[in-house]
């Protein structure tokens, strides 16, 4: 369905993509992860034919996006990163327009529109102009416009940024539904729990290339490490626990499972807290890190994948303890 082969892209002297290759099959959901500036949006733009690569090829259903653009694009549905809807049209009119633009006849389009309205739960505001919709409602419409044409390849570039929980939930359900019906999906996001919820194949883009590619469960098995982190007022005490590898660094103490999936990190945390004795008075904070994509990212890049309140991700350097 989608074959991305050895894509290179630079802006002036800055190399953004340095040999990205992967394939996504029909019915597969591939989550593209990476910190800000990793090149996710650039890669999505190249796949969609909005930008040209310096080198490499993109084939959609066998059609080269550069040399057979029209055929390749016929297969495509795109939700760009920023909300993109016709503000002067109602939600229903938007969907009718984008369904017809996707090649669905005027006669057949209303049925597709009704499906998209149902899939993204737009019924309560379907006949309201987009300029009168709330941010969350517009975001739903934005995603619905990408799926209304029932594309064979769906590109969703951070579709849930700024979306409320209900919108996220509806979108994830719609994505799963499309994939079940054969659509290949490439989904960029900073929300790691979404990837876990979709049980998607994971592609981690870092420093311009794919550093991990595999099913979520496989990556978790290979790289996920649970850990408990304690921070003290003053030097961290010398505490040990048989189930974890301990690293002390100034005022912080970290016990890591080293990828051992049998370790119950919550129990370790309780044991450690119970054994603190008088040092408990100096304890400033405690954080339990379950074996998750977050810890996979940490294991592979040496950096934490941290989300701020707006959902925009950034990475921070951290010492790898396993």
């Amino acid at each position, binding site marked *: 369905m989608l074959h991305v082969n050895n894509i290179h892209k630079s802006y002036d002297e800055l190399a953004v993509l340095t040999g990205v290759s992967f394939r996504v099959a029909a019915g597969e959901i591939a989550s593209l992860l990476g910190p800000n500036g990793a090149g996710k949006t650039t890669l999505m733009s190249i796949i969609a034919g909005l930008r040209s690569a310096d080198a490499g090829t993109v084939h959609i259903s066998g059609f080269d996006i550069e040399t057979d653009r*029209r055929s390749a694009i016929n297969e495509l549905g*795109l939700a760009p990163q920023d909300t993109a809807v016709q503000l002067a049209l109602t939600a229903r009119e938007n969907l009718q327009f984008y369904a017809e*633009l996707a090649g669905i006849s005027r006669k057949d389009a209303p049925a597709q529109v009704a499906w998209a309205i149902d899939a993204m739960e737009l019924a309560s505001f379907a006949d309201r102009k987009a300029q009168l919709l709330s941010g969350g409602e517009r975001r739903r419409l934005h995603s619905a416009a990408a799926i209304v044409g029932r594309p064979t390849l769906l590109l969703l570039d951070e579709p849930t940024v700024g979306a409320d929980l209900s919108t996220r939930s509806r979108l994830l359900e719609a994505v799963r539904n499309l994939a079940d019906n054969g659509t290949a999906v490439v989904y960029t996001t900073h929300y790691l729990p979404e990837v876990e919820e979709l049980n998607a194949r994971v592609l981690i883009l870092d420093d311009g290339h794919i550093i991990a590619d595999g099913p979520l469960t496989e990556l978790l098995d290979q790289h996920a490490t649970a850990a408990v982190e304690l921070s003290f007022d003053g030097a961290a005490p010398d505490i040990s626990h048989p189930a974890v590898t301990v690293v002390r660094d100034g005022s912080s103490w970290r016990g890591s499972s080293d990828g051992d999936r049998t370790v119950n990190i919550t129990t370790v945390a309780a044991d450690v807290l119970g054994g603190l004795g008088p040092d408990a008075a100096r304890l400033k904070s405690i954080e339990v890190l379950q074996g998750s994509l977050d810890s996979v990212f940490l294991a592979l890049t040496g950096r934490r994948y941290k989300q701020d309140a707006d959902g925009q991700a950034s990475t921070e350097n951290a010492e790898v303890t396993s």
Partner: protein
Amino acid sequence: MSRSSAFLPIFRNEAKLVWDTKELVVVLILMPLGIISMLKTTMEASLLASGVTDVNGAEQVVPGQALLFGFFLVSFIGLTFFREHGWGTWDRLRTSRATRSDILIGKTLPWSIVGLVQLVALFALGMIVFDLQVPDASGLLGVMLVAVTWMIFVSAFSVAMVALFNSIQMVSAISNLGAMVFSALGGAIVPAAQLPAWARAIGPAIPTHWAMEGFNAVFIDDKGVSGVLVPCAILLVFAAAFAAIAHNRFKFDAAKTSWA
């Protein structure tokens, strides 16, 4: 599920957006009517002073104001493109199966039709309300030919301006300034014979001049369709030149600034 072409949805969508702003179209007709009523007598005197006889002023002021206000369509056509950038939907168009022609013609044509409606309405009201002489069949065909070639020129010019400039403010400025300057130098505001020598010398380089030549051939010289052929041909040359600019300079991946 059957598949259909991308031109029609784009055209229909733009036509709907035009229809939703129909009050604007009415203004584009009513405003020149107001100015025509104010300037008709002055233009009669101006035409008589130019040596033209048996006129009432409508022969100058109706086509002149129609061309002046017709040029304002440049900013409306520009807005159809810049609006897509403001709404973030331009990339949706680019990643649809619509061709360059589907997008350019589909978005421009509804406003070109509005321009024709505006011209036809102004001439019809000019004949009914302002005693503009009703030409014979040949003359009517001539008027229609000039109107159509003029709108082809305005449409091509508009797309060329979108291609050349990256902000709607710039295209609006070109539209407003162009309407005034082109109309003044082209003999649409006052008869060309009343212009200073330097302006008369520049006139043939201005498309409005040739549109006025065409209308004058019908309403003043009673030449019928034969009198508009050369002006229409020259208008088409202008249109072709700006269409070539639009074709060569329109970058679909260029970033454009709308109102934001």
